[in-house]
């Protein structure tokens, strides 16, 4: 303890002392305040302004027992200076590009310039300790998605885990290629069924989860997180299909449409399709109302495949036939670009009859336990 105090006394690193010539990472006149580390205690410890131990440790006894590595503060101060110098150079480049941007009129070159500025901004901020702390230890929902650096951090996190889980489930459950041939994932798609009061089903759904019918009886909240910069608003459409509907005449299965939304304007920050949005503007967006999957008794497990598309043009809102829905033709005709997908599974359970009644679907059939051979499946 004594050692620590002595070491701090001589080589104390005070960032706020250099206010006369404010350097780039402590200057918030042009940069967004969301790049700041808002927690005072953590900030003080990071920049060596306090001696009460790490602010991220809430327990007093743990904080007292904790010892930082020797000389980490003085080394950090030197490292900070080096990296800040590099960031300053990058910001100077950004300034030049912004001057160029103000003079250009051509849309293509404007987009290129903006992309260049974004990559420079990411490089200038990704090593900023405050940004690093925010993106690695703070709640991802609280990050400011207008900042390219935070979007980059979120994308890296998504690619490390969530994307891999999603793609694995889509391939193992044969959502690809049973519904659409393939997917080039561009954005993070998350869903949850907010009407559930049971904590077991009210969380964000992990792709491939088996869910009881009552837990999916209301339309889901869909979160579509774009990582690329969205200028203005993009239009998105969402399709929920079930490729496992029994097709008795063919002794096979067919695809049914359960939910279709189109022309939903979203951007980096406003990225959720939730009940409040649907209540106010639902009619403008809805091609087909939500109708939950109601697997009948003794049918195999059914997959609810939710696809998210970027639109190339606004769609006409007109009713679509649900039965024998050909998703591939629909996507091709409307010029939709698949950017994300999600899947959950359902089987027959005791809540099915209740949900059938809620939606006026009549009584369900009961199949034989063993699938027949008449007519022979093609």
């Amino acid at each position, binding site marked *: 303890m004594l050692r620590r105090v002595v070491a701090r006394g001589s080589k104390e690193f005070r960032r706020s002392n250099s206010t006369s010539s404010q350097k780039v990472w402590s200057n918030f006149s042009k940069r967004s305040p969301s790049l700041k580390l808002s927690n005072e205690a*953590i900030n003080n*410890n*990071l920049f060596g302004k306090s001696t009460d*131990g*790490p*602010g*991220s*440790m809430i327990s007093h006894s743990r904080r007292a027992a*904790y010892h*930082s*590595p020797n000389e*980490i*503060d003085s*080394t*950090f101060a*030197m*490292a*900070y200076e*080096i*990296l800040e110098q*590099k960031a300053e150079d990058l910001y100077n480049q950004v300034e030049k590009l912004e001057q160029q941007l103000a003079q250009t009129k051509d849309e293509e070159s404007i987009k290129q310039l903006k992309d260049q500025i974004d990559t420079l901004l990411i490089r200038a901020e990704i*090593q900023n*300790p405050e940004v*690093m*702390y925010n993106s*690695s*230890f703070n709640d991802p929902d609280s990050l400011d998605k207008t900042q390219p650096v935070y979007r980059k951090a979120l994308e890296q996190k998504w690619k490390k885990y969530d994307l891999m889980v999603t793609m694995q489930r889509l391939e193992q459950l044969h959502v690809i290629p049973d519904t659409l041939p393939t997917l080039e994932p561009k954005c993070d798609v998350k869903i949850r069924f907010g009407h559930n009061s049971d904590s077991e089903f009210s969380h964000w759904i992990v792709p491939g989860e088996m869910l009881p019918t009552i837990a999916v009886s209301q339309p889901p909240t869909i979160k579509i997180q774009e990582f690329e910069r969205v200028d203005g608003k993009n239009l998105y459409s969402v399709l929920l299909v079930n490729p496992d509907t029994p097709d008795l005449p063919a002794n096979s299965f067919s695809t049914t449409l359960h939910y279709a939304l189109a022309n939903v304007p979203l951007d980096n920050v406003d990225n959720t399709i939730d009940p409040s949005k649907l209540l106010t503007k639902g009619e403008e967006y809805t091609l087909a109302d939500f109708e939950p999957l109601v697997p009948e008794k003794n049918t195999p497990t059914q997959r609810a495949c939710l696809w998210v598309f970027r639109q190339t043009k606004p769609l006409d809102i007109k009713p679509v036939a649900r039965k024998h829905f050909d998703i591939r033709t629909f996507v091709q005709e409307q010029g939709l670009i698949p950017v994300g997908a999600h899947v959950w599974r359902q089987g027959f359970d005791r809540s099915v009859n209740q949900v059938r009644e809620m939606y006026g679907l009549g009584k369900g059939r009961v199949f034989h336990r063993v699938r027949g051979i008449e007519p022979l499946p093609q």
Partner: protein
Amino acid sequence: MFKSFAKPQSSSGVLTFIRGKRISATNPATERIVQQLSVLAAGRKQPKLLNLSNEDIVKHRTIMSAWKLFTRKKKRAEQEQLNQQYESICNAMNDLKETSPALFELASHKEKRLRFPLEMRFPTEYPPNRPWVYNFTGPVKKRK
């Protein structure tokens, strides 16, 4: 459980292998340490994981990236200098070729068979481990 292989014993200069003979550690102190380690679980023998606070993890990452930047800059400067040196060698040789072709021939003459002469040494930052070779004899010159 497993007997360690006996070391080759060299008596009177002939190596003989004895298969299956157990060797005890020669030093009793070493034996004790071996015995003590054998009763410890593997997990206990691992070095302890560094348990850093969030702030210190961020500081550590910052330091590492600054160090990477610093070394990269240094390497780039060194490479730049080497490039310049090579270029100036090329320029000098080109000059020599124009001014005196005979000298150029001599300077750029490649000696065959003779590879890596001992007296030629790549310039390094530190002296060699053996600074002086006492029994050095120069390259044998053929009689003409």
